[in-house]
C-alpha cells in the first residue's frame, strides 16, 4: 500500500435503477387515469464505501447482477450516483466491452482514431502511436479492411492495443479477456503488470478466479450491490470461493475454479 492519496474514493455510493418498462402504452393510460404505477426499484449499488490506492491492481468479484458493472460505470463517469459521491484522481480508461466504440463500416485504422478520440485522446497523439498500436494488435494486413469483416477476437485485440497505449491513471477492464487467445491474453496481462509497476492503477473484473488471483493485489467481493469483503486477494477469493462452494459437491481449495464456475445458471440469470 502507498502513502499517496487514493486514486478512487467511494463514499456511501448508491445507484438506484427502475425495473420494468419505463414507457409503454399501458403506463401512459395509467398515468392519464391518474393512477401512478410505480416501477420497482433496484439498488444496483448500495451504500458502498471503499478506496483504491495508486499502483494497485484491484479485482472485483461477485455473481451476475451484484453491481460490478454499475460500479465501473460510476467510476468511469458514464452514469452518476443516486446518492453519495466518488472522488476520482486522474484520467480513467474504461474498457467495459470490446469493440464497443468501433464502427463496422470503417477500416481498422479509421476505427483506432475513432476509438482513441472517444476515450479522450488527441487525434495527433493517436496517429503518433498508430504503428505501435497495429504492432501490438498484430493486425498489420487487416488495418485497411472494414471492421465488419473482423472476427470478435480481432476486434478485441484492436480494442486492447488502443487501451494499452492510453495514458490513463486508472484503467478498467470488465471481463474483456474472454475472446482473445492465450498468447495475446498473456501479452495483455504482462502489460497490465507493467502499468501497476509504473504506479498506475488497474481495476479488473473477471469471473475467472485464477486470473484475479494471479493479477490482483487487492480484491473486493460484491453481492446485491453491497460490500461483502475487501482486502488481500487470496483471503477475499478464498472466502468468495468457500461461499460459492457450499452449493457444489466438493469444497476443497483445489477446486476453487470449478466451484465458482459451477454456479447454477438460475442464480446467474
Amino acid at each position, binding site marked *: *500500500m*502507498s*502513502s*499517496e*492519496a487514493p486514486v478512487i474514493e467511494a463514499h456511501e455510493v448508491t445507484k438506484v*435503477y427502475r425495473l420494468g418498462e*419505463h*414507457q409503454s402504452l399501458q403506463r401512459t393510460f395509467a398515468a392519464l387515469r391518474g393512477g401512478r404505477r410505480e416501477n420497482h426499484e433496484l439498488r444496483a449499488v448500495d451504500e458502498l464505501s471503499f478506496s483504491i*490506492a*495508486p*499502483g494497485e491492481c484491484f479485482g472485483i468479484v461477485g455473481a451476475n447482477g451484484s453491481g460490478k458493472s454499475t460500479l465501473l*460505470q*460510476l*467510476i*468511469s*463517469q*458514464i*452514469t*452518476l*450516483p*443516486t*446518492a*453519495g*459521491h*466518488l*472522488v*476520482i*484522481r*486522474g*484520467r*480513467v480508461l*474504461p474498457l*467495459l*466491452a470490446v469493440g*464497443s*466504440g468501433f*464502427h463496422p*463500416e*470503417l477500416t481498422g485504422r*479509421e476505427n483506432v*482514431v*475513432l476509438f482513441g*478520440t*472517444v*476515450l*479522450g485522446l*488527441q*487525434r495527433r497523439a493517436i496517429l503518433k502511436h498508430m504503428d505501435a498500436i497495429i504492432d501490438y494488435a498484430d493486425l498489420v494486413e487487416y488495418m485497411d479492411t*472494414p471492421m465488419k469483416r473482423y472476427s470478435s477476437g480481432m476486434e478485441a485485440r484492436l480494442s486492447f492495443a488502443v487501451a494499452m*497505449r*492510453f*495514458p*490513463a*491513471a486508472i484503467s478498467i477492464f470488465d471481463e474483456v479477456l474472454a475472446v482473445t487467445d492465450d498468447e495475446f491474453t498473456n501479452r495483455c496481462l504482462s502489460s497490465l503488470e507493467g502499468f501497476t*509497476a*509504473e*504506479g*498506475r492503477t488497474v481495476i479488473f473484473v473477471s469471473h475467472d478466479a485464477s486470473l484475479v488471483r494471479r493479477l490482483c493485489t487487492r480484491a473486493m467481493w460484491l453481492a446485491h450491490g453491497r460490500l461483502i469483503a475487501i482486502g488481500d486477494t487470496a483471503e477475499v477469493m478464498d472466502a468468495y470461493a468457500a461461499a460459492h462452494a457450499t452449493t457444489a459437491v466438493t469444497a476443497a481449495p483445489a477446486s476453487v475454479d470449478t466451484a465458482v464456475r459451477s454456479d447454477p445458471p438460475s442464480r446467474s440469470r
Partner: protein
Amino acid sequence: MVQTDAAAGEPLGLKPAVARSWDPGFEVLVQPVRSRIRLRDLPKMRGVIGVLAMRDFKAKFKQSALGPVWIVLQPVLLLIAFLVGFHSVAAVGTEGVPFIAFVLTALGAWTYFQSALGMGAMSLLSNVQLLRRTACPRVAFPIATLIANLPAMVVPLTAALVVAAALGRLSLRVLLLGPGLVWLALVAAGSVSLASALTVRYRDLVAVLPIVLQMGMFVSPVGYTVADLPGLARTVVEINPLSGVIEMWRWAILSTAPPDAITFILSGATTVVLVVGGWLVFTRSEPTMADVV
C-alpha cells in the same frame, strides 16, 4: 513512453504525487447533479466532435455504388420534385426570378435541415454502445451530425450563388447570408438537441419524426413565398423557424424585396424557444442518458 524522473529511481508505490503524462493532476467529484455540461465546455470537445463528424460523413456513403455522388444527386432530385409539385399547382410570385433559381436559393436550407435532423435525432440511439461504455461527452454526438451534414447545404447553396450571379442578381446584399447561415445553424442545433434528447427517453419520436419532416416541407416557403399566403396559412408558415431563414437567404442571394417584419419576428421567436428549450432539455437529461436509453 511515459517514464518520468520521479518514476526512474524511487521504490514503487512511494513516489510523490507528481503530475505524470497520464495524470494531469486533476480530481473529479462524481455526485448527483441536475446537469453537468456548460456551453463553455464545448470548444474543448472539438477534437472528438471532428472525428465523430468525419465518421458519420464517411459511414453515410459506405457500401453505396454512387457514394458521394449522392451529395449532388439528392438535392437535384428534390429540386425536380419541387419544380413539378409547386410550379404546376400554384402561381408563385417570384418577382421575375426564374422559378428554378427561386427554389434553388431556398433548397440548401431545407436539405440541410432535413438531413441534419434526420441523422441528429437518432445520434444518441445509434451511438448507444459509446453512450453506455465510454464517457465520451454526449453532446458531441448531435453536434457531429450538424457538421457531417454540411455538404447537404453547401452543394445547393453554391449552385444557387452561381445561378444568381449568372442572372445578374447578386449584390452586396449577399453579406446578409452570414446571419442567415447562423440562423439556420441555430434552428438545426435547437431541433437536433431537443429531438435527440427526447428520443433517448421516448421512442415515439422515431415514429413521428418522418411525418414532422414531411409536414415541415409543406410549411417551409421553398417552392413559394410567405407573401403569397393568406390568413391562417400565412401565420402557420411564419411560426416555422425555417421560414425566416429561407426568406432571408432569398433576400440576400436574389436581391428580392425584403421579407415582412412579422415573418422575422414570429420565426425568430420560435427559433429562440427552440434553441433555449433544446439546450435545457438536453443538458437536464444528459446525466441519466446511459441509464434510460
